[in-house]
């Protein structure tokens, strides 16, 4: 292999580092109207009246829209497959506002100053309603967040809006109660995970204009251009064919841009005024009015025999979807489906619970997507079990975990929003990941060493799995086109959000065609020009889009051989292509020359092919994470000294970029474990609405990240590759909590693990 398994530089890297205009806001027309959104100051209210007259009369104000002026189509902002697994519970503007920051009106003005001034002149009369701010009290509360008559959801979603339930799910295998009764050791524990903000560096942004054919063009910093087109079509009531969505470079997403945010507002302004319009979210708006991670609560019961063989795992969950049911069912199901199959030797397993509405900003997709939440709970519970059994936690994993060529019945039962698919895990080096990690962190010595003093060190570990795209739902396609100099255009609907996917997809095409990656010119993504792709989420790009590219490139190879056969007037079997030349016996012609002839001289035709792929399964990447901490017993402060992550993502297409994906994921996981906390006041107002109050790890907080990729070969992946986008984030919360327990014997069961909680637990212990 020449082009894949090679750490080449990102194809768009130079443009990015030299600050070329490549992001949405850089490219917006200078004459675009500036769109600003008036947002609700109340967590829950009904708008009795809006008076926009004074604001409208302000010089430079072009247009103001409220719930009186917009289409009344309930839609979901969640950018997912179709039929959509999230309830239709949102209007572009509604009479009801459901969280502090919910949209009330949009102003379009000649500049930002005027738009801001106009916002202040809009007079809104609210009937303030009793909000639901505690997700544990939401189900059946007197306040009903979605009382509307036109609430809808697809048949496969079990919603009960009258009881504030966006989705409910339940599955079980075997006899739970019986197995618990038979188990010699049983643990029952409750865990909480918090909402987390994505904090991609580029805020959400979009602009729109009408093209010369009268169609709506929306340029957006999005992970899901094709879903944006479909959602806009529904929300705005205009046919898909009249909308074009273009994605320039995206300054990070992590799931936060897997949906629509500013797009409907600029689109409506453009449709109304005929003028270009742009929106650029302030950081406050990003925090208050886009997505967070779903906060969850888990009650875990595990039963095992005294040798450490686990018989039964029972998980009861509760998830906070906020004001709208975005990704409500799917994140919740992933909490089960991407964690429980790791322990495939159980006799009985149950997973279920509710996803409830609250008057918090909407939860949505976020890297790890339910799996990280459940991973913290289950992998902490495993540590508790190991301690109770007096077994090394590493050994407990080894006894019970999934291995190569094995399966789990959960794969078939639980998909994302619906049934899953049967799957044998054909590539799984989890055992090797653990072995390597144990050595790297020096587990044997550190785990059982004496813990004493004011500053105490400890180690902890956790294992994780994720998936590679959503089986039988996520589809990708790629078009390859031969140019008259022998280079290729690669048109992909896949969305590079900073991951380097344009680069690795080019590498895959180059490998198949046996040409240098330089000769592949990628373009992603534009719904008018590039073929369909569900988008950058669910760890799908390398696996799903990568396979589509592989298929397209194989087709192109055949086309080149066919054209060569026609040129030499021999049968195709006698022709070969080595990347540079087309050879038929004694005769040869360079690809460049053949392309030239094809386009200018003989048998003239364009060589162009499209490959499509949908995963029949979703092969999981695996990881073993090991944390070494030092806890100050006087202050409760925890220092993460070292984090070892050993990851099986199949065969990495670009080892550097794969490693950076893991490192980036780890830092976000460490953030969730130790620093990041979404805090509201008693009225539901977000207190952590800027980067001073919401603390993400900085350079000095991240010490040593020691990442190693263990190679496996996934037969269904392109050149053996699986995904690596999400897996890195999953283990830090549990591994760090477990390390703290190992150090000082206290167990923190709600995230983030702050010094305050550690100190309190230490005091309670005494």
């Amino acid at each position, binding site marked *: 292999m020449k082009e894949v398994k090679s*750490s080449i*530089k*990102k194809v*768009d*890297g*130079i*443009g*990015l*580092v*030299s*600050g*070329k*205009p*490549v*992001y949405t*806001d*850089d490219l917006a027309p200078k004459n675009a109207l500036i769109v600003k959104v008036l947002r609700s100051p109340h967590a829950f209210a009904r708008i009795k009246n809006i008076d926009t007259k004074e604001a409208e009369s302000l010089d430079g104000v072009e247009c103001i829209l409220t719930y009186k002026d917009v289409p009344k189509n309930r839609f979901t902002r969640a950018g997912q497959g179709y039929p959509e697994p999230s309830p239709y519970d949102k209007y572009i503007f509604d009479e009801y506002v459901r969280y502090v920051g919910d949209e009330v009106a949009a102003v379009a003005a000649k500049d930002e*100053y005027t738009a801001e001034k106009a916002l202040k002149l809009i007079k809104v009369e609210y009937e303030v309603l009793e909000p639901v701010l505690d997700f544990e009290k939401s189900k059946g509360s007197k306040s009903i967040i979605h009382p509307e008559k036109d609430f809808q959801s697809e048949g496969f979603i079990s919603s009960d809006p009258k009881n504030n339930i966006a989705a409910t799910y339940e599955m079980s295998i075997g006899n739970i109660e019986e197995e618990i009764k038979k188990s010699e050791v049983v643990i029952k524990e409750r865990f909480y995970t918090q909402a987390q903000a*994505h*904090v*991609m*560096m*580029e*805020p959400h942004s979009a602009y729109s204009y009408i093209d010369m054919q009268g169609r709506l063009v929306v340029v957006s910093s999005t992970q899901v251009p094709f879903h944006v087109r479909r959602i806009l079509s529904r929300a705005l009531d205009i046919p898909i064919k009249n909308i074009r969505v273009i994605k320039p*470079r*995206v*300054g*990070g997403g*992590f799931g936060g841009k897997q949906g629509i945010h500013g797009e409907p507002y600029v689109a409506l302004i453009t449709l109304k005024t005929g003028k270009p319009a742009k929106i*650029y979210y*302030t*950081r*406050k708006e990003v925090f208050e009015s886009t997505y967070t991670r779903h906060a969850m609560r888990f009650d875990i019961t595990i039963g095992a025999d005294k040798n450490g063989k686990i018989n039964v795992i029972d998980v009861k969950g509760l998830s906070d979807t906020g004001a709208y049911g975005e990704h409500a069912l799917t994140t919740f199901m992933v909490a089960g489906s991407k964690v429980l199959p790791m322990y495939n030797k159980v006799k009985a397993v149950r997973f279920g619970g509710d996803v409830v509405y609250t008057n918090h900003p909407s939860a949505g997709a976020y890297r790890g997507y339910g799996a990280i939440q459940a991973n913290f709970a289950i992998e902490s519970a495993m540590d508790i079990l190991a301690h109770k059994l007096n077994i090394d936690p590493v050994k407990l994993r080894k006894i019970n975990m999934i291995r190569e060529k094995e399966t789990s019945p959960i794969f078939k039962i639980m998909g994302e929003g619906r049934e899953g698919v049967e799957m044998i895990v054909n590539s799984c080096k989890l055992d090797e990941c653990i072995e390597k990690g144990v050595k790297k962190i020096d587990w044997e010595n550190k785990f059982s060493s004496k813990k004493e003093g004011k500053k105490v060190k400890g180690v902890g570990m956790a294992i994780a799995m994720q998936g590679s795209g959503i089986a039988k739902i996520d589809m990708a396609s790629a078009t390859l086109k031969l140019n008259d100099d022998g280079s290729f255009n690669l048109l992909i609907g896949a969305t590079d*959000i*900073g*991951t*380097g996917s344009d680069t690795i997809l080019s590498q895959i095409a180059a490998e198949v065609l046996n040409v240098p990656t330089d000769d592949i010119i990628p373009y992603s993504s534009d719904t008018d020009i590039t073929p369909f792709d569900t988008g950058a989420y669910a760890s799908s790009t390398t696996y799903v889009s990568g396979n589509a590219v592989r298929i397209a490139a194989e087709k192109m190879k055949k086309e080149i051989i066919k054209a060569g056969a026609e040129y030499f007037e021999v049968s195709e079997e006698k022709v070969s292509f080595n990347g540079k030349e087309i050879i038929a016996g004694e005769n040869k012609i360079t690809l460049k020359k053949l392309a030239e002839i094809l386009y200018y001289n003989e048998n003239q035709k364009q060589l162009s092919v499209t490959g499509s792929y949908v995963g029949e399964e979703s092969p999981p990447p695996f990881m073993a994470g090991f944390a070494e901490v030092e806890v100050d017993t006087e202050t409760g402060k925890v220092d993460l000294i070292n984090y070892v992550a050993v990851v099986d993502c199949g065969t990495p297409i*670009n080892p*550097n*970029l794969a*490693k*950076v994906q893991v*490192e*980036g*994921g*780890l*830092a*976000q996981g460490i953030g969730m474990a130790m620093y990041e906390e979404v805090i509201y006041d008693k009225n539901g107002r977000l207190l952590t609405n*800027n*980067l*001073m109050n919401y603390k*993400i*790890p*900085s*350079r*000095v907080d*991240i010490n040593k*990240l020691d*990442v190693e990729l263990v190679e496996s070969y996934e037969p269904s992946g392109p050149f053996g590759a699986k995904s690596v986008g999400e897996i890195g984030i999953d283990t830090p919360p549990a591994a760090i909590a477990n390390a703290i327990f190992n150090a000082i014997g206290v167990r923190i069961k709600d995230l983030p693990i702050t010094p305050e909680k550690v100190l309190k637990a230490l005091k309670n212990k005494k």
Partner: protein
Amino acid sequence: MKITLTINNTKREVEISPSEFLLDVLRRLNYSSVKKGCDTGTCGVCTVLMDGKPVLSCSILAASADGHEITTIEGIEKDPEFKNISNALLEEGADQCGFCSPGLILNVYAMGKELKNPTEDEIKKYLVGNLCRCTGYVPQLRAIKKYFEVKA
């Protein structure tokens, strides 16, 4: 009001409003390398050099930059140090989404002029205001250490 800025060695008379920040003025003048990330001087993506020193352009009123020299990435693009720094980042794959890269590079560039053979700790502290959410900082540190040829 009118101010004079020397941007990337070119003197420019610029019409501004008194409440405008330097960041918005620079973006209005098409210096697209200067990014807007947090509005509160916390994330570092808007970093530019003022008289050679890194500053956060989102927190500096344009009026107070009157008469000063401003350097953006566009101004050091041909400088060999820019190539060395950016190449080190690209080789590690530490560019990722790229949104924080221009601000980070300008700070590394300024650090190179200010500190001799910085240690790992000094590097981290100098760059602490440049947040990044994609890379986990570690590949950036590998690249910057390589650039300074620091031994850990």
